[in-house]
């Protein structure tokens, strides 16, 4: 299921990032890649704040829809 549909507050594991190379690089650098455990914390009109490792990362709705997790 895509990140924007994951319930808030529950830790999930990323399975796939549907992104072109440039975007994928940025995601990887921030630690977002298949296997990473993240927790969606807050949603503001579809834009998402994630807990990644011990930090907070904000991504827009379009991006959240392209990252799958379970």
């Amino acid at each position, binding site marked *: 299921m895509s990140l924007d549909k994951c319930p808030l507050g529950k830790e999930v594991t990323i399975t796939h990032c549907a992104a072109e190379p440039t975007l994928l690089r940025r*995601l990887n650098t921030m630690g977002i890649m298949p296997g990473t455990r993240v927790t969606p914390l807050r949603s503001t009109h579809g834009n998402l704040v994630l807990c990644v490792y011990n930090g907070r990362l904000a991504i827009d709705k379009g991006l959240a829809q392209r990252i799958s997790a379970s």
Partner: protein
Amino acid sequence: MALTFALAGNPNCGKTTLFNEWTGSTAHVGNWPGVTIDRKEGRIRKVRDDIRVIDLPGIYSLSPYTPEEVVARNYLVDEQPDVIVNIVDATNLSRNVFLTTQLLELDLPVVVALNMTDEVRQRGDVIDYAALRAQLGVPVIPISALHGEGLTDLIDAARKAATQKRVGKSVLADSALSEPLLQAEKLAQESSLPSTVFHAVKVLEGDSLILADKRLASKNAAITAIQSTVSKHRDAKDSAESAVAALRYQWISKHVQPLVRQKKPSHQANTSDKIDRWLTHPWLGIPLFLGFMFLMFHLTFGETLFGIESIPGPGVWLQGLTEIPIGALGEWLTTALTAAGAAEWVLGLLVEGIVGGVGAILSFVPQIMMLFLFLSILEDSGYMARAAYIMDRVLRRFGLSGRAFLPMLMGFGCSVPALMGTRTLETEKDRRLTRILIPYMSCGAKAPIWAIFAAALFPQNADVVVFGIYLLGILTAVISALILKKVLFKSTAAPLIIELPPYRLPKAKNSLLLMWEKLKEYVVRAGTIILVSVIAIWFLSSFTWSLDMVEAGSAESILGTIGNVILWVFKPLGFVNGPDGWKAAVAILTGLLAKEAVVSTLGVLYNPGIGDALEDEGARSALLASLATAFTPLAALSYMAFNLLSIPCMAAVAAMRAESRSGKWTAITLCIWVGTAWIVSFLIFNIGTLLGF
């Protein structure tokens, strides 16, 4: 012999705080060649030996993709500092160590400074420093740059590390890619590449910059062999880089993450999260943000404090303070020079040109300074990232990313720092588009234009008219963004990925230093250009083509004749009718140099000899009367629209040129500005006339 420490770390890790603590006023800000990135260097104060520090740009990785990363890695590989001081945000150890694993691959001594250990303590978390040191293989020093803790230990450790040579090591050495790594290392050695391990890993990653290195030119066969081995270990869809990044994080999860014993799990709401529930609230977020911004502008530009009649707004009050000495100087010079029998042109040059020019800049400085201070505080506290996040939704509809909001917001103060602020946007397309839109945000220098026309032609509704002008600017920006996106900048805005650092109370010293740095850049950039512009305007409006001196702003002056020639361009826009029409055209020309000049020029042209309409009450009243007869309300609206949207001042144009580093795009941008201004003015005047206004 001088030692050089290179500070490397993620953005928001407190690197700048440490740099400021160490170097204070010895810091010197320059530029990395070829890019608009600050190069900060200084000397560590209060130590006996000579230690230089260079603050590398905040980076998340040493890849070759963003200019910051390229600048940092070229510096480390080519200029070989004596030791890398890697600042790591201890509250987000795992993500920060991603960069550390890359720095460790270089043949340079490394010391890891774990910053924000005070926050770690506050949270009740415990980090096993000794084990971390064992895993990383380099000294790990806990510090708190904000409170000045551990800094001497850090200097000692770095000094010691600088004396011992270090060979790069990679965490990939005991990963699935250990074999290809060994082969790549052999290849790097044979090709005489320095920092063998670093270059070997880059070959594994398929790093374009390294693979283009001449020393690897003949080794294509070997490189392809290594890369095919790597590809066996990864998903066909992933790149080699992703595979390596994944291995790094795997190592970090296994060897670093367990060293942090957390009192509360990461995803549990911390203080910053609780604050964010309000500040990034779906419905309250934007209003709160707008409220903060309004407060900032009110304190900076507001005539009175919170509407209390007797108390001036802080910004306006400070501005008034600078006008006193300038006014006095001008008067003194005039009397002194006249008494000394100086030639008229000398008087003109010194009083109107130089003192007037310096006065124009200085009068602006206090408010720009306040604006910078507020923005520095908002940036340092971490709120700006939240603002980008909240505004992203709104801006994305018009093809911009959330990060564009800050430069555009600054445009309401002054376009020059706003244009410089576009550096934070991710793609060049985003930056170019934003730079075109920034001047539509009516800047502080244009405000006197609205004030005077509104007072002259719309006395009952002056505030509505001025507000309308600001809205017109925003509306034009929105519509232009939509059009330009379809026509020129076809890709969608870069997706928003932004770190939300924990809220931190900024240290006063840091905010002031940040403000000071930005202010210096503004004064030097804008100041020199505006000064030159004002002198040029004085000259062009006081002399004829045959260099005879005439009354300032007469139709025979160079500027006057140019104004008459270009009149026909403005005829359809409705504001150059009548015998005085050329005056409006001339004011537009002088406005090209500095927007403050529009009102002064109109004042001088309509009522020469009675003072500057910007500063002198009598001159202002006279101008109000003149404008009321010279313009119709509709013509005034059209004229204001043209000044709003057309080419901003020369300082802004210079800033735009410097940021875009492209003559072609500068020309395109100028054409867009003039074209848009002309079209909007045309529409306002002609549709208004048709509707019977």
